[in-house]
């Protein structure tokens, strides 16, 4: 019951944000409709980092778990195990960094934003 409450909360909050985006349907000007692109971009960037960080946390936790068990079994090999663990952690972290770069591109360097600004009439510089 507790697990399903958490999932339902997440789904409801996402549903409410979608409702908020769609709230100005009636009589919306082109500007307002076009600006929704930026709202959705911000949501996309946040969701990218959310899921990437979750997966990274789980993956790196498993990596550290394996290496700590290895050191506990064989304390003499702790130097090699630590080096291997750091290499593995950096590999896992790089996947989250890819998601971060996508999020940064969405927020700061969106290639479509000039097009959208032209469509909705804001002077794009």
């Amino acid at each position, binding site marked *: 019951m507790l697990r399903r409450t958490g999932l339902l909360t997440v789904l409801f909050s996402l549903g409410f944000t979608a409702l908020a985006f769609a709230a100005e349907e009636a009589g919306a000007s082109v500007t307002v409709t076009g600006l929704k692109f930026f709202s959705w971009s911000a949501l996309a960037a946040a969701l990218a980092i959310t899921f990437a960080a979750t997966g990274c946390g789980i993956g790196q936790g498993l990596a550290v778990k394996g290496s700590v068990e290895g050191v506990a079994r064989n304390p003499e090999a702790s130097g090699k195990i630590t080096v291997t663990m750091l290499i593995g952690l950096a*590999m896992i972290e*790089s996947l989250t960094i*890819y998601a971060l*770069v996508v999020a*940064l591109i969405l927020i700061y360097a969106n290639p479509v934003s000039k097009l959208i600004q032209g469509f909705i009439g804001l002077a794009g510089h």
Partner: protein
Amino acid sequence: MEHPVLFLPMLLKKLGLPVVLSADEAHTFLQKLLLPHVIYAWLLMLVFILIGWKVGKKIEVVPAKGQNFFETVLGGIEDFMIGIVGEEGRFIFPLIATLGIFILCSNYMGMIPGFYAPTSNLNTTLACAIIVVVYSELVGIRFHGIKYIKHFTGPVLWLAPLMFPIEVIGHLARVMSLSIRLFGNIFGEELVLAILFFLAGMYLAPLPMMVLGLFTGFIQAFIFCVLSMMYFAGAIEEAH
């Protein structure tokens, strides 16, 4: 977010050179040449050349202070590299050591106020990654000749049409992964520091993130070198 205060471009601007701080405003070739990441990369090059020249002037059998320190560092890197690449890979040591020390020092330069890390710009990291990947392919061709294709065809012959595009894409993805991993770590660190400074600079909020930044700077330089060594090792050894 306004432009950060950078000492060297300010100095060069006072000397009259056309210096701009962001790539959008750089139109002429000289302006593109004097962007912050290029200037600070040159500063690092100057520092390394001076140190190398000064320490290497007089090499004695029983090493003194400076020579001892560098012998320890470079000897450590070389032993670690031989462990991964094997004895035939000794010739790539200058490239690996230079890349490692360059990336380490430029990561740490980002922590100093008034300085800018060249690796926090995608151009620098892309240059390092392209050099490593292209050189590893050339090393593979030099060692194996035309049989280097066997590295791309996978274990069994009839799988070759499937494995070949996958392996080629994998090798090209190495460029992207090396460059974006380093760029994302260092630029992300800098972005977090800037935001924390903007939010709570009075309460020394960026300090814990700076400690983390020192740690990840070292780790990222180490990972770049280890991955480069593994790519070279994969190119030198026999195909499975």
